[in-house]
């Protein structure tokens, strides 16, 4: 028995080691997660409070309040834009430098209360302008993230694996012998997956929204458009991965290499607002980040199409680029 067991053990080890792609991803994936998480959560202690400053924060650097430790000062373009942030408790206080300085504080915000104390300790003459507004509950904030994550997995693995299986089984080769073009085949895959995703996501939205008593602040039609573009970009990405390769383990590794960074960096579970700038830039390049940002702006803050247009344009461009590359590099047979 041992001889037979060792024989199969040895052959399987050789198979694994000689599949270079899988070997690399097996080593690369955990390393990249550790390094990535280190960059996101490592480094010096994070600021505890966020203060928006109308105009340039640097212009008022001389004031004592600006030297308070563990407070992050963020420039906001206008008082109106800053007020929106204070009302939704995305910043703890809004400050307009001057003589005397004016500030807006959300009376419903515990962190606003502490930040106000810090400001008044540094400048007792600052003029108080109270506002109110609830913070978005974490469950509501998480809701778009969960829907987006589901779309990502369904599109990347659903499309990537199916095309790979078709190629491995020779079904693609058989289709190649018909008048069907690569573009037609890929388009059919995209549309099929998109249809499924829209039905599933709509169903999930209705069930979860009912469960947690969630009501979208923005337009449902706009949300649908965002979902369509978000799903298309992920499907295109999945097709690009599956366009050429025939190794199941390699494709699995590549898909994991795409999904894990998006799981961690795209803001599914937590916001990356306090992470280093370059991490945020890297995150912004991921289609799921753009998808979730747009979805949250509409669902949680009632944003209109103008506010999310940059996200939509980015998703459309990503879709076109990946679909074009997928069609160009597509192989019908092993």
């Amino acid at each position: 028995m041992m001889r037979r067991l060792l024989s199969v053990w040895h052959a399987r080890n050789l198979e694994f080691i000689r599949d270079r792609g899988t070997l690399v991803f097996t080593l690369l994936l955990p390393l990249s997660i550790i390094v990535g998480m280190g960059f996101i959560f490592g480094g010096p202690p994070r600021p505890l409070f966020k203060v928006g400053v109308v105009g340039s924060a640097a212009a008022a650097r001389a004031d004592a309040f600006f030297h308070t430790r563990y407070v992050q000062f963020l420039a906001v373009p206008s008082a109106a834009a800053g007020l929106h942030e204070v009302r939704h408790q995305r910043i703890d206080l809004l400050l307009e430098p001057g003589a005397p300085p004016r500030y807006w504080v959300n009376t419903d915000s515990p962190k606003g209360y502490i930040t106000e104390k810090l400001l008044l300790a540094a400048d007792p003459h600052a003029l108080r302008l109270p506002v109110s507004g609830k913070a978005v509950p974490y469950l509501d904030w998480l809701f778009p993230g969960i829907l987006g994550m589901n779309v990502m997995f369904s599109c990347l693995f659903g499309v990537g694996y199916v095309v790979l299986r078709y190629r491995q089984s020779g079904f693609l080769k058989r289709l190649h012998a018909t008048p069907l073009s690569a573009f037609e085949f890929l388009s059919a895959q995209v549309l099929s997956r998109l249809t499924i995703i829209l039905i599933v996501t709509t169903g999930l939205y209705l069930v979860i929204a009912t469960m947690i008593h969630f009501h979208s602040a923005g337009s449902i039609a706009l949300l649908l458009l965002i979902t369509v573009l978000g799903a298309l970009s992920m499907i295109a990405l999945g097709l690009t991965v599956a366009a050429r390769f025939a190794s199941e383990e390699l494709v699995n590794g590549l898909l994991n290499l795409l999904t894990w960074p998006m799981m961690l960096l795209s803001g599914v579970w937590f916001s990356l607002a306090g992470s280093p700038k370059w991490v945020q830039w890297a995150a912004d390049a991921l289609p799921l980040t753009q998808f979730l940002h747009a979805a949250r702006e509409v669902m949680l803050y009632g944003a209109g199409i103008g506010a999310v247009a940059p996200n939509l344009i980015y998703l459309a461009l990503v879709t076109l680029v990946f679909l074009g590359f997928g069609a160009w590099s597509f192989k019908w047979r092993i």
Partner: protein
Amino acid sequence: MRAPILEVRELLKQYPGVTAVNGISFSVPEGMCFGLLGPNGAGKTTTIEIMEGILTPTAGEVRYRGEPLGERFREAAGILFQATALQNFLTVRQSLAMFHGLYAHGRDIDELLKLCSLEALAERDNRKLSGGQLQRLLLAIALVNDPAVLFLDEPTTGLDPQARRNFWALVESIKAQRKTIILTTHYMEEAELLCDEVAIVDRGRIIAQGAPRALLREHFAAVLLELPRADFPDGARQLPLQRIDADDRVEITTDDLDATLRTLIDAEVPLKNLRIRPANLEDLFLELTGRELRA
């Protein structure tokens, strides 16, 4: 002479370090069943895949009705590969309908189900078909566009004898509809039964071409005698006989059976295991290449 529906001109297919097809040329008249025969690795599947438009040749060309292979050819070609998987969870009828939708024109699906004896299986999941049933479905798919040219690449490999004979009967009924058929096979019985003309391919070249019976007449005498090699003494090798040495047997061809038998008896060759049969295409291949056809 009928006008060729397919012309293969100076086909060359090279892979790094290997020339799979080395200057093959032939033409196939409309309505003919043309067989490509040869051992594994001879280049016949590469040749047929270039003819199907699946592979691009390194040099040379294939023309369909005088034109390079293109959209018109894809609409007119029906193909049955050596091995094809279908989409999971689809019934026989749904699989046929999917392929039916890929062509501008096609045959009625019910008619195809009847032609390929699949009526009773129409609603069965295609994963639950036996080997013979699946091959009949793949043939029905190859016929879904009512093709002018039907490519059958080793269509009965792996089928049991009964399923193979059923499949041959089907192909004969398609032949009767004056379809052009290109067949590769390593079953010589299949080629002799179905093909009007065959080309024997070895090491990427055609080494013989013609109607099976004409080729056999050209290369062999009327009768072939087969003896186990162990029964054929070394001394008998000097006898004036037309002899072919195979791995485990000696084959002798003759037009005068009585005289040949007398010669063997006189030489005291034991005839207990002697077999007398007509020559076939496998014998022809052995004659031409000194190698046996390998499955």
